């Protein structure tokens, strides 16, 4: 079934009672928050003479890397000077980044920083310029929030996974394995909690939940190790739902299943989609991934920041158009997909 | 042709020139005694021969061929083995492995345990030593470790053995066995260089005597042609002789009450020992190594508990739980194992000297300055004739062994203890300095300190003790007083006269 969910009104999702376990295939899909934006290239020359500071989340992970490359490309197109600073997922480092941007007199900021509660201090330390917050709120100084609707993205995954199980298996499953990264804090909670909410809206309260912490940012190796043990504790289980905070942990889970010859037993709901990770898309039960399009973030960030720097007023939110992508729809979004 | 010949060897440590051109020969089948004051450069010289240090100039000829080692492996390949002054063994490894260290017997590339044990047993048997082969050497006493070091040098082919004060930690019996061994090696054609501060040993085993003074050879003659006085003169440039520093007992000593007393005490390795430490007197505790002497000394310092009997301080029974307890009660202790128990390596001489006195030196403010330590150091540098740069910041490791010993003795002099327990106080100290240390001990007693000298060297006892207890296998077998404290009486009581020393 094609379960792309972009629009649709309806009631608030996830508020349904988490009771028995009965399937509610009729449950409404999650509602995309208002403010979904369009990706567009920066106008050449629009950024001439402007300097942009970009605080990165953590460049040792793929997602921010994709964002970075996209931003770099767009800054080049616009002709703006870009200075980057990797906070390595550490608020204290992000604070240092902000100070350095102030020292260097940047005229606009993109802040991708994990600790929303640290934002006041980071804002205070940085220069008084327009700030685009990426994926994580940076109050009080954020001019505009740009990026993922983390909870909504999670709900999309959970809802679609739930829908699959409701239709195929009457919401029967052996375990619900959630591969998380506690270290990411709020984002982890929004994304993974969102998945549960979405799932529960269809199949009721999650049963046999197994939360596995896969290390800072979500790493393959711990996921593999923990999944191996978890599968052992689920002997004979044929329907194991596996949802993960990123693709790396899903790759780890698949590696664990592969060794035990149980790839068939895993039903995968994935955050983010990178067309190169074929292991996931060729797995027998890849139910789908929610796309974040990090490789296009620059198209939201750079043009809009330049506008703001030039004094234009921006909306409070510019959201990425999330899509729940499946085998059937993947080519639409990623023509280069070749798994 | 001599096995080994050096000419013009020079060596400096920084600005300090230690060796000024040494011409030296060691013949196969002959024993050369290498003598000299503490810091004269003896160890430095043999370390150069063994490839441990690199000489700055000069040359070494082995069997007539010029060789410049600069590496231990090279010297070993030429058959040269050094038994160094400071014990250098692999503490966590067993006795057997330490004996074959660096020359493991192997079969098919695999270390043969059986062969290791056989060779170790054989080497130790040559020294007639009975040391359990499977014990880690870190659990041996110092003398046993020294024997293991010697046994190592015997294992394998050696053509030249360099002994650097091998008997400093050995008992008389063990030393006697070593001498027999050396005689045997000499017969077998090994060239032997023997460093010692005990001149009697020279006459017992050496063919030639060679004296280093101020980094130059000041005497090099066959032993038959020299006297002790010649050697001493060549070493220190003046006459010094062994003597007794003790006056006939004075009034003072008789009236004084003992401050610290062991009463019918039994503990590790000793039983039923009574021993008083009386202000103004020096009590000698003489016993061969292993006789329990050092355990008694350690008990006095709170390092060991008592199984029976008691320790009285000012007449009242006390329990000293730790050395800190003992120090608080005014007791000081110079341990026998310099490297393991006393030296703070890497720290300056001043710090090493001041360590137990820090609290006092710091005064009420609790602030400890370098200047205070330096002053403390200067107080003793000259009094004990420490031969060093006279720089309080000099690291203690760069002092010669004997001079380190003086600094460590000064540590307790500075501390001003009421009771001073000195174990092997002159281990590794040269003839001249020995007299200085004896004098210092007597001066200390004269100032009212109660001194206990626990030693396996009768010379220490004879030189300074008002009264001496002799221990054999954990028991006090004799008590000698005043004029009875003589070499003969001591050795006789300790189990047979030894002509060695």
């Amino acid at each position: 079934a094609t379960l792309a969910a972009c629009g649709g009104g309806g009631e608030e999702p996830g508020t349904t009672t988490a009771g028995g376990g009965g399937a509610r295939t009729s449950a409404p899909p999650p509602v995309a928050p208002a403010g979904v934006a369009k990706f567009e290239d920066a106008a050449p020359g629009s950024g001439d003479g402007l300097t942009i500071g970009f605080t990165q989340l953590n460049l040792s992970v793929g997602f921010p890397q994709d964002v970075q490359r996209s931003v770099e490309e767009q800054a080049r197109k616009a002709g703006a000077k870009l200075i980057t600073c990797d906070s390595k997922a550490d608020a204290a480092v992000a604070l240092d980044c902000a100070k350095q941007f102030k020292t260097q007199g940047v005229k606009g900021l993109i802040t991708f920083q994990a600790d929303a509660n640290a934002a006041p201090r980071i804002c205070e330390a940085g220069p008084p310029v327009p700030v685009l917050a990426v994926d994580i709120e940076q109050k009080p100084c954020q001019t505009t929030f740009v990026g993922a609707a983390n909870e909504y993205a999670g709900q999309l995954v959970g809802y679609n996974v739930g829908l699959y199980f409701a239709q195929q298996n009457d919401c029967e499953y052996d375990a619900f394995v959630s591969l998380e990264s506690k270290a990411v804090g709020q984002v982890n909670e929004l994304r993974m909690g969102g998945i549960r909410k979405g799932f529960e809206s269809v199949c009721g309260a999650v049963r046999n939940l197994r939360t596995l912490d896969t290390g800072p940012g979500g790493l393959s190796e711990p996921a593999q190790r923990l999944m191996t043990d978890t599968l052992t504790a689920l002997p004979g289980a044929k329907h194991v739902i596996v949802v993960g905070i990123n693709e790396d942990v899903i790759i780890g889970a698949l590696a664990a299943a592969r060794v035990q010859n149980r790839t068939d037993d895993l039903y995968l709901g994935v955050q983010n989609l990178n067309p190169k990770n074929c292991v996931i898309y060729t797995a027998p039960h890849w139910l789908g991934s929610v796309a974040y399009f990090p490789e296009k973030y620059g198209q939201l960030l750079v043009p809009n920041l330049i506008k703001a720097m030039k004094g234009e007023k921006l909306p409070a939110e510019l959201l990425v158009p999330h899509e729940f992508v499946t085998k059937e729809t993947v080519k639409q979004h990623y023509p280069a997909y070749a798994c | 042709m001599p096995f080994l010949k050096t000419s013009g060897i020079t060596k400096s440590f920084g600005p300090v020139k230690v060796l000024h051109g040494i011409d030296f020969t060691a013949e196969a089948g002959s024993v050369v005694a290498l003598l000299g004051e503490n810091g004269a450069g003896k160890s430095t010289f043999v370390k150069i021969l063994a490839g441990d240090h690199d000489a700055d100039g000069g040359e070494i000829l082995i069997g007539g061929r010029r060789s410049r080692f600069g590496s231990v492996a090279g010297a070993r390949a030429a058959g040269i083995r050094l038994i160094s002054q400071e014990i250098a063994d692999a503490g966590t490894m067993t006795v057997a492995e330490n004996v074959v260290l660096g020359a493991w017997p192997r079969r098919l590339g695999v270390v043969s345990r059986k062969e290791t044990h056989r060779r170790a047993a054989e080497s130790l048997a040559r020294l007639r030593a009975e040391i359990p082969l499977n014990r880690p050497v870190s659990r041996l006493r110092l003398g046993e470790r020294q024997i293991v070091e010697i046994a190592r040098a015997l294992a394998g082919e050696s053509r030249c053995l360099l002994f650097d004060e091998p008997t400093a930690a050995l008992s008389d019996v063990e030393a006697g066995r070593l001498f027999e061994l050396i005689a045997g090696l000499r017969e077998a054609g090994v060239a032997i260089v023997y460093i010692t501060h005990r001149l009697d040993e020279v006459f017992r085993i050496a063919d030639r005597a060679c004296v280093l003074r101020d980094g130059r050879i000041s005497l090099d003659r066959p032993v038959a042609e020299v006297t002790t006085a010649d050697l001493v003169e060549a070493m220190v440039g003046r006459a010094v002789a062994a003597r007794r520093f003790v006056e006939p007992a004075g009034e003072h000593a008789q009236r004084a009450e003992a401050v610290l007393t062991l009463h019918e005490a039994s503990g590790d390795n000793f039983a039923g020992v009574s021993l008083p430490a009386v202000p103004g007197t020096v009590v000698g505790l003489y016993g061969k190594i292993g006789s329990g002497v050092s355990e008694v000394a350690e008990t006095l310092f709170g390092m060991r508990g008592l199984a029976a009997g008691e320790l009285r301080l000012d007449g009242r029974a006390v329990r000293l739980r730790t050395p800190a307890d003992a120090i608080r009660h005014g007791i000081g202790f110079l341990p026998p194992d310099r490297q393991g128990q006393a030296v703070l390596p890497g720290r300056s001489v001043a710090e090493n000297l001041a360590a137990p006195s820090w609290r006092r030196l710091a005064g009420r403010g609790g602030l400890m300055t370098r200047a205070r330590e330096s002053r403390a150091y200067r107080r003793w540098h000259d009094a004990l004739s420490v031969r060093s740069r006279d720089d309080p910041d000099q690291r203690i490791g760069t002092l010669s062994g004997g001079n380190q010993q003086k600094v460590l003795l000064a540590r307790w002099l500075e501390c001003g203890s009421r009771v001073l327990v000195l174990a092997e106080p002159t281990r590794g100290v040269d003839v001249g300095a020995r007299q200085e240390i004896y004098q210092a001990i007597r001066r200390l007693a004269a100032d009212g300190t109660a001194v206990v000298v626990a030693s396996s060297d009768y010379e220490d006892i004879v030189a300074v003790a008002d009264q001496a207890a002799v221990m054999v296998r954990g028991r006090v077998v004799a008590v000698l007083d005043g004029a009875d404290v003589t070499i003969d009486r001591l050795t006789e009581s300790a189990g047979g006269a030894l002509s060695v020393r």
Partner: protein
Amino acid sequence: MSDSPVSDSAVTPGPHAVAAGGPPATPEPSAGRLPALAKIPNSAALVVFLILEIVFFAANSPYFLNWDNATNILTAISITGVLAAGATLLLVSGQFDLSVGSGVGFVGLLLVELQPHLGTAQAVLVAVAGGVAIGLLNGFLVNVLGINALITTLGTLAIFRGLTLAVGEGQNIAVNGFDWAIARPFLDLPVPALVFVAVAVVFALIMSFTVYGREMYAIGANSNAARLVGIRVKRNLFLAFVISGLCMALAGLLNTSLIGSSSGTTGTGLELAAVTAVILGGTSLQGGTGGVFGTIIGLLIVGVLSNGLTLMNVDSSWQQVATGSLLILAVAFDRLRASLLSGLR
């Protein structure tokens, strides 16, 4: 003079007289009297601890005690284990290698980046060469330039992690046709477990029975003494760093094949896991003691705990708390044994 305690001089200080006599002391125990207890190897306490752990989990999870799970545990510790074997060799000689974690990442990256272009065999060769190169670099810096091993390997840790990230751009890169490590050729044990067992045996043999191994212990016990008996200290240590590099290469290949991909963060933290197992297994930081057997026990103690807690579905934060406590407990247990025995030795 006889043994009589009678002093014949006027100096006798009365009651404080040095007294001789008393019952003859017989303090020295003969060698034969050492009880069998004292012959127990040092790691015995840890083995007991491990057994207790196993009993606990067997009682608390129905899935724990079966062959499948045993293979899981073995596989889970195998990659850390290969590194820990190398770390044991280094640590008995008093050295460290903290670069192993990023080494594993670097080797993995080389493999996944090159395999599509060079083919599997050549890519493996280059990847192994990469691991060895790290070892050579560490060995060179520590032994030729004389830089402290901790700083050196902290430095190369950062360098190779940085290179891995810079080249791989933080992406997870999959590798195809490189799944030899998931085979179970023997006893239903997957290849990594078998490789780990083989590596452990080889290291145990090297360390106990070869001259090189004994020399490494001697260097750790007292490097000066080792030098003075003609052991080529630097050469030996250099070799050990290269061996550690080989271990990285092996662990990197195993890991890549097992996961089927490699990323910029691959191998993060493995150095600490390896060193923890080695130290827990009784190899001292000062060098000169310990061995591979202890390291295996150390690995198992940690591996069994993590496996058992996961089977019991314990939250990962509490797993951390439990692991920390257990680490301390295991060593405390060992100390207890030591102090119980100290009276007997």
